[in-house]
């Protein structure tokens, strides 16, 4: 059974802000310190980081598949237009 105290509740309330870069360096330090002592919150933190990384990787991969050719065309087209402006 997971034990949740006030420090854990505070940690979980701050979790999104911490990973979104909205905490001051002092707040962030104290946030991370709790995770090093609390296995349950450490798991929560790891889960949240993993969720974001998965999302990022999956979408970047999908994006690469969808847009690669268009992006290459755009680069060529833009450079041609820039050189034409001489």
């Amino acid at each position: 059974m997971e034990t949740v105290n006030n420090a854990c509740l505070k940690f979980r309330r701050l979790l999104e802000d911490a990973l979104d870069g909205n905490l001051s360096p002092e707040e962030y330090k104290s946030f991370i310190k709790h995770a090093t002592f609390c296995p349950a919150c450490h798991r929560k933190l790891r889960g949240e980081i993993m969720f974001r990384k998965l999302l990022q990787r999956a979408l970047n991969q999908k994006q690469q598949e969808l847009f690669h050719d268009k992006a290459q065309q755009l680069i060529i087209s833009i450079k041609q237009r820039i050189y034409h402006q001489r």
Partner: protein
Amino acid sequence: MEVPVNKEEGHANEEGNINPHKEQQVEESTAMGRRRKRKELRISEEERQRRLRIFEKEIEPLINDLLRFATTFLTQGNIDDAYDLVQETLLRAFESLDTYKEGTKIKAWLYTIMRNLYINEYRKRKAAPQTVTYEEYSTFKSDDDDEGPPPQMTPAGDMRKEVESSYLSEEVVRALNKLPEEFRIIVLLADVDELKYEEIAKILGIPIGTVRSRLHRARRMLKKELKEYAKKLYRIEDKSSKD
């Protein structure tokens, strides 16, 4: 440096730092098959090379992201329209690169140019924002520097095989597409582009509090949608950390 915004539909404007005395008008076909007049840039060869260097180093790697932003948020999935819009955005950005400092964060600025272009030229909204200064964005870089080190992902290769399979990407995309548009775009800007709340608020023209609440709700919806998928991945992650 300011984001160039058209005041009159169909015409390039002179806002930003482009010197009107160094330009002449040329007609060209442009985004979405229309014709418009563009101020032709007259700059020194040295300056052109500097801008090209910035374009190749800072902007080219972001073109996929710009296409995604355009198709997701602006053109309702139409990739051809997104292509035109991104092309026009890149040309406007190139024209306004005169005060850009190399290495400064540029993505949010490009998104804002694109959104303004879309509003002013393609949607013809009356209440369009006029200009956004580049300096507003550049301050975020120093904020970043003050932050503590970001938490590191547990072993980098843990999920690579799983995540790189197209099936799993499809699952995430499917879940994301179920979100309402105003939630979807915020998740993309925050979790994929890793923009700050302030940047997202400026790009979308909404208050920071709205960014925060929508993002929180969107992540909750997404986690719920991806519950089974996440469980599977957590098991993989746990297994690899024990190995």
